[in-house]
């Protein structure tokens, strides 16, 4: 059981990263469907840099930088050129999928030494909890810190208030002097960096190698996760670990000696995502109250006449 929860956290961590990025982005009113593409680029760049320099820390940083770069393509098209957010996000995913496969083609099958677990002294000695929470690698701890920091920023600071204002009513925000585009650029770029690190987690920790399309739809699941969490940062963490648990269910069931085809079990996270979305979205009234009200709608300060 402890082992299962430990694995759920490990599996949930890339989802946590990417969903944290996306929730900030969506809070500013921007829906970026390019998560999968940014994540794949993060994964391949993180792997390539680590592989060629031998420095996995540098790999993570490069992955984040790549994520930001990818998100900037999206940001320029959506925020400056006013392109449709859905189409641009799809383009970003298709582009990222292709480009990552293109530049990673020669590295498929290579293996590197990824991040190793670091048990936190004292805390990791707590029975059960210590094993589940405090015997991970450094990126997992980073994700803990990131979650706590974001909860604080979103709920307690003026930055959080500004973000919420821009996401709810960009026209009003513009009218009272908030620089809407700047806030949105930063939010999209933050999303990119989180997608990058999430990809790096896949290729440096989870399975320390590069395989084409290795994120297997996690970028999309993260989008569902944001809805599941009703745009609340704290709930994203819970949701990420629940999804993590769903993805390793096949291992658990096999452990119990059930003989179900692994191919059918591999559907579980996707089926779970659909079920969760149905349950969450069925309450239309509530979703309207919680979702950022300008989500996905274009805003052009030039049209303020």
């Amino acid at each position: 059981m402890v082992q299962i929860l430990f694995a759920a956290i490990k599996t949930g961590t890339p989802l946590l990263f990417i969903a944290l990025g996306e929730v900030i982005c969506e809070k500013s009113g921007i829906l970026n469907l390019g998560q999968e593409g940014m994540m794949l680029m993060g994964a391949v760049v993180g792997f390539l840099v680590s592989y060629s320099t031998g420095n996995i820390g540098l790999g993570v940083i490069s992955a984040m930088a790549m994520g930001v770069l990818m998100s900037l393509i999206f940001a320029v098209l959506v925020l400056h050129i006013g392109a449709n957010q859905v189409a641009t996000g799809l383009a970003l995913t298709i582009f990222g999928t292709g480009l990552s496969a293109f530049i990673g083609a020669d590295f498929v099958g290579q293996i590197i030494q990824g991040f190793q677990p670091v048990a936190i002294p004292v805390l990791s000695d707590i029975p059960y909890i210590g094993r589940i929470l405090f015997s991970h690698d450094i990126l997992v701890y980073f994700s803990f810190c990131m979650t706590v920091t974001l909860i604080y920023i979103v709920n307690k600071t003026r930055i959080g208030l500004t973000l919420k204002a821009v996401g709810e009513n960009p026209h009003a925000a513009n009218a009272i002097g908030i620089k809407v585009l700047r806030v949105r650029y930063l939010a999209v770029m933050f999303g990119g960096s989180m997608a990058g690190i999430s990809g790096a987690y896949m290729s440096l920790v989870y399975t320390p190698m590069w395989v084409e399309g290795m994120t297997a739809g996690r970028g999309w699941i993260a989008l569902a996760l944001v809805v599941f969490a009703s745009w609340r940062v704290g709930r994203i963490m819970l949701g990420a670990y629940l999804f993590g648990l769903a993805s390793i269910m096949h291992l658990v069931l096999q452990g119990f000696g059930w003989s179900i085809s692994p191919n059918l079990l591999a559907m579980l996270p996707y089926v779970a995502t659909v079920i969760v979305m149905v349950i969450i979205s069925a309450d239309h009234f509530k979703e309207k109250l919680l979702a950022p009200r300008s989500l996905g709608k274009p805003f052009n300060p030039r049209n303020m006449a």
Partner: protein
Amino acid sequence: MIRIQARTEPSTLMKVASPLLAIVLTLIFGSILFTAIGKDPYQALHVLLIAPLADSYNIGEMFVKMGPLLLCAVGLSLCYRANMWNIGAEGQLLAGALGGSAIALYFIDSESVFALPLTLIAGILSGMLWAALPTFLKLRYNSNLILTTIMFNYIALYLLIWAVHGPLRDPDGYGFPESAIFSDTTLLPTIFESSRIHLGVLFAVLAGVVGWFILSKTHLGFQIRVFGADEPAARYAGFSGKKLSWFVMLFAGALAGLAGVSETTGPIGQLVPNVSPGYGYSAIIVAYLGRLHPIGAILAAIFMAVLYMGGDLAQIEMGIPVAVVSMFQGVLLFFLLACDFFINNRLISTNQATN
């Protein structure tokens, strides 16, 4: 100095020119990329774009690839016109391949004339079913169509993989994850003697024409366009959003399902795990490149099919990874979205503006 100015009326010229401009820009981007990785850009572009049309065999193969792209893209064009963000053509295609194959395998020893039609109908119905599930969830439970259709793509893929490993595996296939090869009665006839162009390609062109007819000539098509362009107006006019949503989704599902079953009963001849090299996703680009217009989709599908062929040839002849195709598709869509900016805006020099 150059400045951006909003046009008072959208430019009709740019609406047509924008896809062409995007293609040119993508090719320029490609040349730079090929130079950067040390390949001869001229040769690379030649292999990608010219070679696929160099001889009649290649042209035939190009049309074989165009079929599924076009079938999916026509359906998606209607969906996107109605603002239904169906990203699920890939899953619907796989479902069609799976459902159709199950029936084809049932008729494997049969000589019945109904074998092929029933196989095709099974494929179409499977595609429709796969489109109906997310549609139902959206209309009944308000779930996000983009995400559910994506999830159903993955579910269809694993279902198909499961099927070729399990119930549909060829018992005499030495354990390979493939079905038995279909009997000739369930194979789509080819149209020309010398090429693999099969009936499915004809279906695709027909679908394009039907799609165009629906959109521009019928009241239903008008309602679809209103519903997508301006939902409050559609509700105001009393059009039933639910009916329209069901129609476009089932139409798209049927066409994607037909694409899937045409692949297995056409060029492939059996059910294999990699039925589609991402046709359902590429069809999104085709639909956009064709301006969500079924006739435009025919032209865009030809271009995309050339790119697919070129990608295969580039890998064989120059060692360029085949993923270059999907990357080009992304870039193409980026450029298209950027060029569309000039439908409603134009560049003017500031000297002129002050006059």
